[in-house]
């Protein structure tokens, strides 16, 4: 199987700052891949290394098997949907979408026809004559998407694609992007700092921390079996248990993660602590309590009795739900 994108020991240093540090990465063709991490973790630099706006300090980048480490952006068959969309304000929507074909020298008639087709694909048929300034945020995003797709790239890069949209639109757009990717069969790589977005959209994802990949895997891998404390902390709303507490709860003396959904309240738990807060979440309530100085969340489904804040209680769980992490 061909890899759409492959990094071999890729580094990008800015002076003393190691924005990306010896990263190995393999993205399968046709994947919907997410790069997740806090700001400054190197995920955006990785995206820019794929698009060609950054050149690696060392290492090799391959796209569809070809070494592109030194290839400038305009010669890469990769296109980007920018975070701020970067639509050209002086052109109408149709000309924006057709831009990629215009600079290739495709004649006016065919490129505008093709732009109309793409506008229809992103449900913006009839908007061709408008200027980007006359569109809403969601519509602008679709134009940016259509514009990035007109060159039929091998890989489509999306930089925080949903960051600027409000919640409702974001959810609708998630489904739409997913459907679009399936229909086109193009590899999508997107950057996000939103765990839910990464977990719900991607087939596989890489979690970045301080210029390196902390873990790479399917959403289920990452969520259920985080490799390090950082991943568990960042991705989940998972509980991170220090070695002492893991041991007290019946596990080995190692860092472990425990999902709140797998955690029940138990008056007679091996360790008890004080309930600090209740957070209503529709399908149930998240109960926050402190066990041996560590904050723990347990999930109580709707309809079950809830403890009073300030009361003392313990937790219980199926031992199989406890995930011991190799990394510290």
């Amino acid at each position, binding site marked *: 199987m061909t890899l759409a994108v492959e990094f071999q020991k890729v580094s990008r240093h800015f002076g003393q700052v190691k924005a990306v540090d010896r990263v190995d990465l393999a993205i399968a063709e046709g994947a919907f891949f997410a790069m997740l991490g806090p700001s400054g973790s190197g995920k955006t630099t990785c995206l820019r290394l794929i*698009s*060609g*706006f950054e050149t690696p300090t060392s290492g090799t980048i391959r796209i569809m098997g070809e070494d592109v480490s030194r290839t*400038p*952006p*305009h*010669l890469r068959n*990769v*296109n*980007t949907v*920018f*975070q*701020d969309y*970067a*639509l*050209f*304000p*002086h052109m109408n929507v149709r000309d924006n979408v057709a*831009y*990629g074909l*215009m*600079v*290739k020298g495709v004649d006016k008639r065919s490129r505008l026809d093709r732009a109309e087709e793409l506008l229809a694909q992103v449900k913006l048929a009839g908007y061709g004559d408008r*200027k980007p300034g006359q569109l809403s945020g969601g519509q602008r995003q679709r134009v940016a998407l259509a*514009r*990035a797709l*007109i*060159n039929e790239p091998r890989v489509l890069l999306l930089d925080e694609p949903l960051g600027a949209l409000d919640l409702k639109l974001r959810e609708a757009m998630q489904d739409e992007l997913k459907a679009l990717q399936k229909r086109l069969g193009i590899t999508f790589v997107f950057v996000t700092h939103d765990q839910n977005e990464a977990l719900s959209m991607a087939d596989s994802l890489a979690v970045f921390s301080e210029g390196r990949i902390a873990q790479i895997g399917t959403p289920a891998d990452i969520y259920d079996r985080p490799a390090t404390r950082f991943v568990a902390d960042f991705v989940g709303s998972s509980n991170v248990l220090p070695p002492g507490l893991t041991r007290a709860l019946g596990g080995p003396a190692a860092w472990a993660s425990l999902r709140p959904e797998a955690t029940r309240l138990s008056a007679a738990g091996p360790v008890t602590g004080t309930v600090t807060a209740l957070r209503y979440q529709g399908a149930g309530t998240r109960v926050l309590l402190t066990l041996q100085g560590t904050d723990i969340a347990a999930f109580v489904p709707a309809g079950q009795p809830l403890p009073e804040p300030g009361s003392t209680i313990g937790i219980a769980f199926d031992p199989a739900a406890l995930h011991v992490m190799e990394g510290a």
Partner: protein
Amino acid sequence: MTAPAILPVRGPGDRFTALIWRQPRVLLALMLGPPLIWLGVVYLGALIALLWQSFYSIDEFSGLVVPEFTLKTYAELLRPQNFDIFLRTVSMAALVSLASGVLAFPIAYFAARHARGRWKAAFYLGVMLPLWSSYLVKVYAWKLILAKEGIVTWAAEATHTTAALEGLLALPAIGGNSLSTSYIGTFLVFVYVWMPYMILPMQAALERVPTSMLEAAADLGATRGQIFRTVILPLALPGIIAGSIFTFSLTLGDYIIPQIIGTSKTFIGMAVYQFQGTAGNVPLAAAFAMIPIVIMLIYLAIARRMGAFDAL
């Protein structure tokens, strides 16, 4: 004791602020009133008076202004010697604007897109510094630089390029005895003197073009040249137009540089000066003064039609 829901009024400042909160237009009127009165009465009033004068004519025997409406004065503009003044000035202004634009662009581009911190400060200082010295001092300094015995001639001798300089001066119409007595000299000094007025608006316009937009163009396959033509230039156009309005109208109205440097042939500014001063022909001076205004209006209308302000 609990604090009251409404805080006590401390003085006139509080009352005034309250008024502005309730009536935002009061502040607007206070801020815009004085300058609008100035603009309306002093500036537009003077302009209308000028326009008015240009429709009067002068009695050729008595030399007195005849306060009757006539187009005679405008007809005089079409006389060969007056029309030459018009052509000379407008072509000079157009060339000066074009050259300023071409020379200013790389400087403005560097300042807007690459210069940071100290380099930016150095840029502003470098552009503004010439504006701090007197205009006359600069023009006379250039007279010395361009004179036959001046630095340029000396430098040409030192670098054995005298032949090139002489070739330039031997050009018909724009050449002359020395740079300081030729149209080339006038042109060089105009470009030097008005350059900052082209750089600054251009730089401001280029600075507003987000980097991501240039990246988007490159991402879609555009070469540097294509990015320049299809993205940078159209987006910088309002700034270029603004700059060219400065260089164009300043050249149209200037009456000192062509007097000190060049062939001493009359430009519009000099004509206005001569007709209203020495000759006492205020109507003709007014008619000449209308030319730059009309040209600028036409220029702006064309620029607008061509979509120069669409990106604003």
